[in-house]
Structures are given as C-alpha cells and as structure tokens.
C-alpha cells in the first residue's frame, strides 16, 4: 500500500469531534477490503472486525485509534465575520492566518484572522490573542454568509499536506490520522498472517473532548485486551526544554508504561519489538496517558490496556509532522504482536 497517499487522504477528510462522518467514510473504504465486517456503532465509532482462526468463543483484541480532531465552532455571525469557540485543545498561537473550512449549508473556504490591535480589548493587545477574539472571514458579503452559515456550525482546518525532507510528512489532523493509518498497515499485514484471536479495529469518536468513543466502544465490544494507538510529542523546534518528554521522529514508535498500561501487556509488546528488531522508545506516562487507553481500561470490569505512541512534531497545529516510517513500524509491530497471541496469552498477564 502507498502509505503517503493513504495518510494524505486521511488528513484531507474533516472530522471535528462529534462530526466524524466524513472521515468515517474514508476509513471504512480503506478497512473494508481488509476485514470481514465494517460498521459504525451507536455514537459513530467505526468497527472493523477480523475474526481469528481459533475455536469459538475466541478472545478479542480491541485496537483503538481516534479519528476525531480538534476544531472550531461558530458562536455568532457578525456582518461578514464569524466568531468562534474551540472544540478540543486549540493552540491560539498558531491560529491567525490559518485556512479553514466552514461546514455550513455547504462547505465554505475561510480564513482565521486576528483583528488589528486597536479593535481588540486592551487586555489582548499584547501577547497571544485568544480564540474568543479571533474571527473567521469567508470572503462573502454579510447577506450571503447569513444564508449559508448558522451558529453551531463546525469549522475544520484546511491546510494542504506537505512532504518534507527525509520521509517526513507535515499535515493537519495527523493527530490522530497517523495512528489510523498505522492500524491500516496492521490490518493489511494480517491479510497474510494467520491469527488466533478476533481483532476489532475501532476508529473512535470524540477523544479530543472526553474519550467518549473509547469508553463506549470498549463497553459494547467487551475485549479481553485493548491497545490505544495515538500520537505522542516529537522533538523539534521549541522542544529543547522538554527533552525528557519528547521523542525523535524516525526512531520508531513509543511503548507507554505507567498506571494506564498493564505491565505484562507492555512487556509482551516490547518482547515482540526486541525479537523483530523494530525500533521503539519507552515512554513513561506517570498518570493519565492522554489516550483512549484511559477510557478503555475501566470499561465494565476492567481491561488490560497498552499504549503505542507515534512521535509527532507541532502537535495540535495544522502543521503537525510525522515520520512515515514510524507509522509503518507501529503497524507492523501490532500485526506481529497479534499474530503471536494464542489461547494461553491471558494466563500470562499475572500482576504479581
């Protein structure tokens, strides 16, 4: 498969938290040929099911990669301009001048703009202008804008993907479409790898706001194991003071460990990576992992969880940067781990 093309296609599809319909279609199209069944659950998370070859009832593994993204929502229409509010953790520092799509009656191109200082409240004339003071301009006259847009419409980023040097890709929404692509790589590898367990890949909804898809899908699916695949902080410009928290791009995915991660499941993933010489880094996660694992871990009576991270530069900006080979490695690691799961694996997860 052409991973660059797949990533670009995924990053081009909008999917602001709660409005994941467009990207769900793109993912469903990619996962359908790789699985036995693809369907959306009650809240919109997409399930793709690969039955294992073990005797029924088989144990189930859940892979979770959230498909939603941060974005904006219209709060007010003021003449030719829209006032907006954040959905998820928007970085106001990068917003002025960003191209966006306003999902009104039809999709409208627009720009996030920062009014001149004299138009801002005095408190915001120096420093970063907060999202509440930014405007969106669609280049339309007031009457036309009022006809096409209403309060509550969502707004997504519209930056075009850019291929940088050394196999790096810059794009909006790589958080977390990079992980969705890693799952695609995994499902693709499993086409030629027999596996005992059932595998359900879930592209979850509303992670950026409250991990909603992970919590609800894990409840319904009742997996024996669950792995969250999400982006983690990559080293790059501006991160020199956070050397202990960031990971170099191109050095492989991270394997998280901490209270959100089952230590034996973590050890099993690490063993597979070591055996196959797949590069990886260990990522300490002292408390909340900031991923779907946090939600899946406490579904029903509890699920052993693990976290695989993809180092990403400039997280939560429209120019997030990923090393495409890290995506490939994460997908391969998942596939190899799944191929090695047998009927006795759960017995190996003894805590003490």
């Amino acid at each position, binding site marked *: 498969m052409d991973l660059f093309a797949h990533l670009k296609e995924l990053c081009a599809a909008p999917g602001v938290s709660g409005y994941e319909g467009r990207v769900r279609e793109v993912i469903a199209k990619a996962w359908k040929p790789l699985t036995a069944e693809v369907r959306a659950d009650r809240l919109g998370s997409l399930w793709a099911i690969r039955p294992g070859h073990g005797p029924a009832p088989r144990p189930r593994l859940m892979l979770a990669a959230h498909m939603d993204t941060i974005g904006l929502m219209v709060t007010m229409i003021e003449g030719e301009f829209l006032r907006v509010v954040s959905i998820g953790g928007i970085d106001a520092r990068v917003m002025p001048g960003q191209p966006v799509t306003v999902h009104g009656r039809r999709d409208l191109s627009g720009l996030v703009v920062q009014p001149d200082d004299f138009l801002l409240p005095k408190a915001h004339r120096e420093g970063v202008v907060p999202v509440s003071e930014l405007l969106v301009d669609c280049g339309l006259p007031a009457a036309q804008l009022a006809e096409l847009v209403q309060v509550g419409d969502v707004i997504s980023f519209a930056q075009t993907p850019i291929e940088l040097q050394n196999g790096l890709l810059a794009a909006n929404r790589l958080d977390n479409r990079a992980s969705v692509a890693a799952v695609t790589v995994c499902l693709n590898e499993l086409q030629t790898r027999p596996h005992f367990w059932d595998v359900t890949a879930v592209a979850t909804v509303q992670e950026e706001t409250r991990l909603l898809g992970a919590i609800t899908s894990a409840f319904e699916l009742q997996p024996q194991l669950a792995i969250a695949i999400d982006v983690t902080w990559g080293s790059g410009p*501006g991160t020199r003071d*956070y050397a202990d928290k960031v990971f170099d791009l191109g050095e492989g995915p991270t394997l998280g460990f901490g209270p959100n991660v089952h230590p034996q499941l973590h050890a099993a993933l690490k063993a597979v990576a070591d055996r196959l010489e797949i590069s990886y880094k260990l990522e300490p996660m002292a408390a909340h992992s900031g991923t779907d694992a946090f939600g899946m871990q406490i579904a029903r009576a509890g699920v052993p969880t693990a976290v695989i991270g993809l180092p990403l530069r400039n997280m939560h900006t429209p120019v997030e940067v990923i090393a495409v080979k890290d995506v490939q490695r994460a997908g391969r690691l998942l596939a190899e781990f799944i191929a090695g799961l047998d009927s006795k694996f759960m017995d190996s997860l003894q805590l003490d």
Partner: protein
Amino acid sequence: MPRPIAQKTGTQSKPPASSPDLDFVARLSNAVAVSGDESAVRKLILDVIRPHVDEMKVDALGNVLAVKRSRSRNAQRMLVAAHMDEIGFMVTGHDSDGSLKFDVVGGVDERILPGKPVLVRAESGLLRGVIGVAPIHLLNSEQRNSVVKVKALRIDLGVENAEAAKKLVKAGDRGTFATEFRTLGEGAEQSLCGKALDNRLGCATLVELLQNGPYPCELHAAFTVQEEVGLRGARVIGYAVNPAAAFVLDCTPARDLPPSLEERENIHYNTRLGLGPAIYVADPSTLHDRRLIRYLEATAQKAGLPYQIRQPGGGSTDAGAIHLARAGIPSVSVSVPARYLHTPAALARLADWRNTVALIQAALAGWSAKVLA
C-alpha cells in the same frame, strides 16, 4: 468637486468591468519574491509585457522600466509605478537540529508566524518547510499566552542536522509563506485570497495598462523593488523617468473588522472592502497631489466607478520616494483595499481590483497637460 455620499458599509461595487486574467494574478501571488530577491516576479512580468511595450529594461537595482509610446505629439511622460516585492524572511543561520534561524523582511507581526507552511527559495529550487512550536500540552498557561519571538522560531525542512541543512539552504536565502492563491465566493462579489496581494494586484493592474493603450500620454511603467524595506527601488525611478506626474499603485489595508465590546465603533478602518479603489490624500511620507486627487475623483464620477478616500494615516507607498525626485513630481497613490496584508493570506474583492484597473485606465486615457495646470 463634490464627492458622492454613497460610501456606506455594505454598499456593493459594480460588477467587474471586463473578464480578468486570474491565472496571471494567481501566478504572481504564488511567486516568491521577497524584497531584494524579486527575480521570480520580474521574470513573469518581463515575459508578459514584452509584446506590448516599445522599450523595456531592468535598472541597476532590479526595477523593471517599460515604455509605451503615445500616438499624440508632445505627449507628456506619465509614470505609473507598482512594487514587485513582498514581505517574508531571510535565513540567518543553522541550528544543530537541522532547523533554520531567520529574520523577518518587511513589516511582519511575529504573532502570525507559528504553525505556518513556508517556501524557501534556495539555489536548488523552492523547498518546503514549516514553522513549528512546542505543543501546548507541555506548556504552562503563561507560556501558552506568550508570543514566541522570531529569534526563538525555526523553519523545519525535515532534515536531521545542520550539516544536511547547509547542503540545501544557505544563510541569506529568502522565503515566505506557502499559500496557494484561491478565490472565495462567486460572481460580482468574488474575493481573491492569497499571499502577496500587496502588491501583486498593483503589478497585475500595471501589466494590464501596458497591454491596453496607447494613451494620450507616454506611459512609463515601473515595477519596483524593495518597497517593503523602505521604498528603495522607487528612490531612483523618479529621477530616471523624469515624468510630468506619477500614479502609484499599491494595496492598502482594509481594517473594516468589527470592534470588541470595549470599542464604540471602528473609527480607524483605513479602507473598506467593496467600496472601490482607495485614493490617498495623506500618509506619513506624502501629501498626495491635490490636482491629481481631484482628477481621479472626476474621472471616477464620469465613468460611474466607485471609489473611496483612504483615511489619512500610517502606511506609505512608493509615492513617498517618487514625489521627492528631481525638482518634485506631482504624485498620487491608488490602492486596492485588502484585508490581512502582510500575513499568510490577504483577502480582496475582485470588483475592487477591477474598478482600480478601470479607474487608472480611464485616467490615462483622459490625460492632458491641463490636469496639472
């Protein structure tokens, strides 16, 4: 001469006078030509004006000077100038992680730099990069609300170390925002959106004036360099051409955005989109020639073209240099109003640009020595 009072916000301009060449505007807007490195735009312009002019040359600073002769005898020389350069950055050094240090060129608000894709014009061609920032998750609330200074920002090409970066880009290379030109909306109210509309719209206007004509005056077109760093190219144009008068074509900010609740109303809008070409009266470097202002107003009224008077205030044009040349050159500036100049993407109304072309075209067509009498 009285001015019409039809200048309220929301008044719509007339539909475009003729079908414009938006492909050429797009090529001009997308070209990377930061002050002092204007060759990409210069080349586009030289290629397109060649069949339409009687003389053309590039002067010692890089200004393009072209002449379209008149059929009238004793025709006066008229200078029409538009700057080619745009704001951007210059690479100043290499960081150990392979990223590039840079300085801004021209008036750039550093608050608009982070999180933007850029193009670097290196010897090997145009390279793509991004201006990154540390993720907000790692920052405390004070850091999240602090502007990242230019000296802390880096351009990331994706290379792994300084050595590899030096093979691609050297200190002194220039670049700017990577923004593809596009149009928004439709029909008479269509908007143009792209980088460097300041002043590629002025360049496009001047090209069109050369394609049309001849005029009762001898048209001396000057596409100037280094306007954004102090009107440098324009300093020598007035001397070289020695015209009877000069029209300077530029883009001026439309700051017609709604004010915050603290402000009563927006009293410093400068210009407004949709109200037509903006005629200058006064800016920090020029008191524009009263006779030329009146002539442009009369011309607009006669042709039924909308226009607006730019609020006197900050923001100079090449007129600031041209009107001081030799024994003094009567000059006036006319700008296309545009929002968000000097950011990754400016926004102008197609109709405002078309009406600017129509106004200057009519002013040249109707020119006589009596205007200055």
